[in-house]
């Protein structure tokens, strides 16, 4: 028989995919949607919407440690990454092997020369390889390295990377989509030229993000039109999205204050899994990580099977990035860390956030144990796909 459904509805532990919007954000978006004006209009209706957009810009700039005019609103992180990589006009792109596809696929598409830098076993950038790439391409290059990895949560030393890159004459872009609200982010402090963020990763609306462009840096727009966003992003602003983005940014300071609590929950989760099965692997454990992200294996069980099995038990997690071709195969991130398909192909990502409770973690652990026990029992009977 199937396991009984959870006691009080499904559990959401996939915040790195998207974080549920906070009620205050939903309210702010609904209010903004009701406004008639176009922010470019001269009249009072337009001015009202414009004011709310600029208020939001200030809230977001405060969270990200940049000046408000440096923020260019986009339709999300992917568009921000595209604008940075395509708009900077550098012929060589230097990226890490663990970037999100929004950077990797774009770099492949637009670079005259592409250097993909390896990472170490914890997923941290190989600095010697960076230096070599900078020596070869420095003044022609844009370096794009993410702040925190979406699968493992590992945090790259972006300030150090930026210092070396800028000394060599390169521009630096950072995909910081997973960071705001989880760790403190300072665009100015990192010393970089461009930075991508997306509202929905910290409880804002989906479909709105921003590229921070350092004052004085000239880049080409990806979307041309009516001159909005200092000419860097044409099209009538997504006013409701921007207002929700701003509200989420204002509220993200509360999440930062709870980072220690969130990290303790993660550490307890990983410790409990190891008590159940000592062979559990936790990726990037030896490096600084986001407090909310666990990339853990269930030994011998394909990631896809775990994600479906947990979903059937009412627990939402993710198998890292997009699916592979039906084989037991590690994601490109875990392969870059040196994980074999046999180990990396058995990893899932558990990511928590503002609404996660300790009780939900316990229920996740219960579902994980039940799935694992069911499968190991079937292995003993010799009728399972998972062991094959």
């Amino acid at each position, binding site marked *: *028989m*199937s396991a009984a459904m959870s006691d009080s509805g499904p559990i959401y532990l996939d915040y790195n995919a998207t974080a549920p919007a906070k009620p205050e954000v939903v309210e702010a978006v609904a209010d903004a949607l009701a406004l008639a004006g176009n922010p470019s209009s001269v009249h009072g209706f337009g001015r009202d919407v414009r004011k709310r957009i600029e208020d939001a810009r200030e809230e977001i700039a405060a969270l990200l440690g940049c000046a408000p005019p440096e923020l260019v609103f986009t339709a999300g992180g992917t568009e921000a990454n595209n604008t940075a990589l395509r708009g900077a006009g550098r012929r060589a792109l230097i990226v890490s092997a663990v970037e999100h596809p929004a950077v990797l696929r774009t770099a492949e598409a637009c670079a005259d020369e592409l250097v993909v830098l390896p990472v170490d076993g914890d997923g941290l950038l190989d600095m010697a390889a960076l230096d070599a790439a900078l020596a070869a391409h420095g003044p022609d290059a844009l370096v794009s390295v993410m702040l925190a990895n979406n699968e493992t949560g590992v945090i790259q030393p972006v300030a150090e990377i930026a210092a070396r890159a800028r000394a060599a004459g390169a521009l630096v872009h950072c995909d910081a989509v997973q960071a705001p609200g989880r760790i403190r982010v300072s665009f100015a402090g990192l010393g970089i030229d461009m930075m991508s963020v997306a509202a929905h990763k910290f409880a804002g609306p989906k479909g709105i993000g921003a590229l921070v462009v350092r004052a004085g840096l000239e880049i080409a727009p990806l979307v041309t039109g009516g001159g909005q966003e200092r000419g860097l992003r044409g099209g009538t602003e997504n006013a409701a999205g921007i207002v929700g983005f701003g509200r989420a940014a204002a509220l993200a300071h509360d999440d930062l204050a709870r980072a220690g609590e969130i990290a303790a929950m993660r550490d307890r989760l990983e410790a409990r899994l190891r008590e159940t099965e000592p062979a559990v692997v936790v990726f990037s454990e030896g490096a600084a990580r986001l407090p909310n992200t666990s990339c853990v294996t269930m030994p011998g069980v394909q990631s896809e099977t775990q994600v479906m099995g947990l979903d*059937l038990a009412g627990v939402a997690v993710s198998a890292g990035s997009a699916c592979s*071709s039906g084989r037991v195969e590690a994601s490109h991130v875990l392969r870059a860390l040196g994980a074999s398909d046999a180990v990396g192909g058995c990893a899932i990502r558990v990511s928590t956030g503002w609404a996660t409770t300790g009780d939900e973690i316990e229920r996740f652990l219960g579902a994980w144990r039940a799935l694992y026990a069911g499968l190991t029992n079937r292995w003993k009977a010799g009728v399972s796909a998972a062991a*094959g």
Partner: protein
Amino acid sequence: MSSASLDLDLGIAGPRRETRVAVAMSGGVDSSVAAALLAEAGYEVFGITLRLYAEDASRTRPGACCAGQDIYDARRVADRLGIRHYVLDYEARFREAVIEDFADSYLRGETPIPCVRCNERVKFRDLLALARDLGADALATGHYARRIAGPAGPELHRAVDRGRDQSYFLFATTPAQLEFLRFPLGALAKERVRAEAARLGLAVAGKPDSQDICFVPAGRYAGVIERLRPGAAEPGAIVDEEGRVLGRHRGIIHFTVGQRRGLGIAGPAPLYVLSVDAARREVVVGPQAALLRDRVFTGPLAWIGGDPPAPGEERAVVARLRSGHPGAPALLRTSADGAAEVALEEPEPATAPGQACVLYDADRMLGGGWITGTGRSATLAAASPDAARLDRVAAA
């Protein structure tokens, strides 16, 4: 047609809402209705759709299963039913387990049935094991076949709708697989299934039936093989039963036993493909009478019909030699290595190697095997002595 509502009982102990049933959903009307009826009957149903090949292969072709549009359709049916639904990327497995074998089989001069391989190696192996791993109590499909509880365990029977029966494609099913499988449509006529789809408000109610082989666009299998095995379609000779060259052909993959069209040879009487000799790249042709066979040889038999026949024992069966073949009375005799010789009471037009010989006791499927060759009894050979060369081919 009855309009009474259906109630499908899967014969599984315990409350239905706690009985988890995985449904293999192709996006077609049959598996959609299977999922819908089980959900309506109160089972905890979830759907699995396999992406078997790249979407561009046959994106817009109606009636193909498992391409992009079909995955979309399956998802929308699951949305409508409010059931969980997962799409799995099986492209690599399907290529390895089914498509490569399909191409190699044609190159050996055979006419393969990839649907059997897909059931055997993909749906009833990997997908079935996955359903078990996910805690399912059964895996249901939209096949037209019946699983009937018998005194010695489940039996596999032909569908009530004989015209739709798909039991032929299920001959390689093992007893352990059948234990876990359910075929909710086996007792229904196709018209009833479409009517149920309409009653349930499924958008796929009017969708065309799947045709031919799902990964072969519009029957053009030769193009698929040429893409997989470039240069494999080498030209050769078309010969008669005595080996006299009558013409040339552009590759044996374009020919199957029994085929009449596409030979490009004018003669006093219509010519048929009698056999395909891959080693010599020869297509052997002759008159229709020379196609007749009353012996069928198979590889090791898959057996699901209770006690398998002992080596040397003769058993009366009904043999189906192609999916569209209604069945013919025959005597089955197996050898010690499990291979079988099926002696037909009346001669039948020859069946191509690579097809299956599937055996029944009335409606109950007993098992079957891949056809390795056909031949003629002494009586038949005496009646048509000029086809002696074919007996050698069959016995080779």
